[in-house]
């Protein structure tokens, strides 16, 4: 974890810049409209040379739209963009890049099948006899890579490197043009702590060189570790622009979340070890030395009916991989699962479903939503798949199930015939939950069910999970938000570096810092 040290780093010079220096980018009264939606409504934004400016907001607040408006991907319907003192409208990312504004996106948007050198240099490649000069290209690429502190072979193909390296290659590419402005759109979401630190070193160096950096990240710690200034957007509108040093975390969060005071943020149920197992209660499912090479090291885990197990750990710590083994989504290569004392072989999700195990993937769009099917079809999909295609669910029964779950989960709009792709993230998540609940699972594996959805839906889902556990369901709950895990779980399994390192009952005295401690120390302090 990166220690937030805003005050050490916050220097007087940046404050001064705010008042005296001319912003390198100044956007005034920016509006962007899509048919039927006003994505941005008269937003102001400015970026000074030599600062890291964090753009904050919940999903749908308008962060990416603002970035796209700046780089010319989205057309603005009102407002002015002044870059370097001149009013400008860019024709697209390429145009913006040529004129000193480079963007690096969340998912590495480079071509894995090309070499590292090409990924850095294409568009600015050195030429010889009218064609690419490969030798010079590799040499120049090496210089740019060194600037990022990377020592890799420019002739190697990009997809032979880790995501973190690819991300730094993307920044190398961005800096080839001597960018005055660097836009980093959630570059850290798939990096581990060391990698983030390396990225920050690069960012600090660029800041010293006078580059204005626009930084988007969902990790508050990172924002406080690196940014000088914060602009908060909400529902397409500017909320505030503040110096990071003067904005406490709590206030930032409340600025981001519409109409919620501090108290309302934590409205969801507090379970905290509510389920009290008696000595003689039998586990529903036992993992004994279960593991998969490269994914999770062999682990033991007992799951009891009526109990919520939280999986805590950083992104990439093996949380998802563990859940996928329990579901048979990936095949294990060591250990076994036991149910009621006998071995259980799960090779496919289908077999898991037959054992009344259900799993919602963290990748909602890729592995959950079947967008062009209706809400109703999505809800009965799991149930129908279990029955096979020859025994269709009777229409009236299907209708009953769909209506019951839509009502229970409060799916909006309450139209079973709407296509699922047209629903908001939170409602899609509810529909997916309904799909699994309809199969009447005994064990429910929830992988990041609360990610990227609004606070209201989040609360509803967490309350529901707690209720289900009360009714006797075993639940495994995964979330990046430790607060949520702590709140909802009866017991927490801590993951670190693809290993289950600790198991903690969530008694009253366990708090988030303690949990972080365990994650950080790999459970040794316990």
């Amino acid at each position, binding site marked *: 974890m990166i220690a937030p040290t805003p005050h050490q780093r916050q220097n007087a010079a940046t404050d001064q810049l705010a008042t005296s220096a001319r912003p390198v980018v100044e956007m005034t009264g920016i509006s962007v409209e899509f048919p039927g939606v006003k994505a941005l409504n008269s937003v102001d934004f400015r970026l000074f040379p030599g600062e890291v400016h964090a753009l904050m907001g919940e999903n749908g607040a308008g962060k990416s739209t603002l970035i796209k408006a700046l780089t010319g991907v989205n057309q603005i319907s009102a407002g002015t963009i002044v870059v370097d003192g001149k009013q400008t409208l860019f024709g697209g*990312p390429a145009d913006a890049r040529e004129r000193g504004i480079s963007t690096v996106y969340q998912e590495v*948007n480079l071509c894995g*099948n090309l070499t590292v050198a090409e990924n850095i240099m294409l568009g600015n*490649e050195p030429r010889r006899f009218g064609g690419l000069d490969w030798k010079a290209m590799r040499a120049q690429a090496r210089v740019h890579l060194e600037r990022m502190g990377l020592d890799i072979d420019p002739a190697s*193909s990009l997809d032979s490197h880790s995501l973190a390296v690819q991300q730094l290659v993307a920044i190398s590419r961005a800096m080839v043009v001597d960018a005055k402005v660097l836009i980093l759109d959630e570059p850290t979401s798939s990096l581990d702590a060391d990698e983030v630190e390396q990225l920050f070193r690069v960012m600090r160096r660029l800041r010293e060189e006078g580059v204005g950096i626009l930084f988007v990240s969902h990790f508050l710690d990172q924002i406080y570790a690196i940014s000088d200034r914060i602009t908060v957007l909400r529902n397409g509108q500017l909320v505030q622009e503040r110096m990071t040093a003067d904005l406490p975390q709590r206030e930032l969060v409340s600025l981001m979340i519409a109409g919620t005071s501090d108290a309302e943020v934590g409205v969801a149920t507090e379970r905290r070890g509510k389920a009290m197992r008696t000595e003689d209660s039998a586990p529903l499912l036992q993992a004994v030395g279960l593991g998969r090479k490269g994914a999770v090291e062999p682990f033991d885990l007992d799951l009891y009916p009526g109990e919520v197990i939280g999986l805590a750990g950083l992104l990439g710590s093996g949380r998802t991989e563990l859940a996928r083994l329990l579901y048979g989504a990936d095949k294990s290569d060591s250990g076994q699962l036991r149910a009621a004392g006998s071995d259980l072989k799960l090779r496919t999700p289908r077999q898991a479903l037959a054992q009344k195990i259900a799993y919602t993937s963290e990748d909602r769009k890729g592995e959950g939503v079947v967008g062009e099917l209706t809400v109703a079809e999505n809800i009965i999909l799991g149930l129908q798949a279990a029955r096979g295609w020859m025994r269709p669910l009777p229409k009236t029964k299907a209708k009953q199930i769909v209506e019951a779950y839509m009502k229970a989960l409060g799916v909006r709009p309450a139209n079973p015939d709407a296509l699922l792709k047209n629903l908001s993230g939170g409602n899609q998540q509810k529909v997916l939950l309904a799909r699994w609940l309809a199969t009447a699972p005994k064990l429910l594996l929830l992988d990041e069910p609360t990610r990227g959805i609004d606070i209201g839906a989040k609360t509803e889902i967490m309350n529901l999970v707690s209720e289900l556990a009360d009714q006797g369901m075993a639940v495994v709950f995964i979330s990046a938000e430790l607060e949520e895990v702590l709140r909802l779980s009866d017991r927490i399994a801590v993951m670190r570096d693809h290993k289950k390192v600790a198991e903690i009952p969530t008694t009253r005295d366990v708090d988030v810092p303690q949990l972080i401690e365990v994650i950080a120390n790999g459970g040794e302090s316990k």
Partner: protein
Amino acid sequence: MSTATALAGTRTFRPPKLDRRYLPVLGTMLVFGLMLVIGGLRYDNFLSPAVISNLFINNAHLIVLAAGMTFVILTGGIDLSVGSVLALSSVITATLLNAGWNVALVLPLAIAAGSLLGLGMGVMIQYFEVQPFVATLAGMFLARGLCFVFAPESVPIRDEGFIALTNWTMASGRWRLTAAVVIAALVLLASWWVLHRSRFGRTVYAVGGGEQSATLMGLRVERTKVMVYVISGTCAGLAGVLFAMFSRSGYALTGVGMELDAIAAVVIGGTLLTGGTGFVLGSVLGVMVLGLIQTIITFEGTLSSWWTKIVIGVLLLVFVILQRILTLRRT
């Protein structure tokens, strides 16, 4: 400035490792070599200059088609129209020459017809979001229909300038080169240069690797995607001229199913149909393998001609499965 970090690892000596990307092409080369060896051992005169020369002379048009097809497939597209466009170009050549037009005007016109059709398909695919398969299928039907509008029957070419061109050969001993082979070689050279030495060529690979990424990298994706179909159309037009030189006629029913030969050659040559990986020289090897199969079956004498298709099918199967294993190991 240059601080090597734990993340990137320290610079170590790496033994020269074979790049995975070359494996499919090497496989094709191996097959090609094996076929030559087996043919040479089994039949007299198999490895004679005449046979090898003929391999190139008979397949010059297919080499050009395969080169164009490689561009398209590298972007992840497909072009089903090339066989028909080849026929159209040969028919245009024959009809116009017999109408007394000058060779120097007719040949560029015939080739341009291919480019124009390619442009039309490219625009349909890029700007009207019609799937490549459907758009080029339409192009295939359109070109074939146009052939019959020009000339329903086979048209023998009598133009002297053209005949002189077809008669031109370069010989050294029993090795022989026709103008068509020289042209095919030039096309190859140009394709190789464009694909590996130009920004456009690298954009072709980039589009195949990930269209969205390529766009965000600021590469000119739209133009590139249209251009590959123009290139393929142009190659097909040129191949039509070469075919007219080879057969000294233009006939509306030539090149039926030739698009499949071109696709098969590209696939056997190690280019992935998903795009992004492959080499134009591999495609040429693919053409050579197809040509050798035909030659071997002719040499065998007792085997009927339909064995050619079956062997090509089996070979495709083997290569596809091998490629599949390669890509599986990569991920």
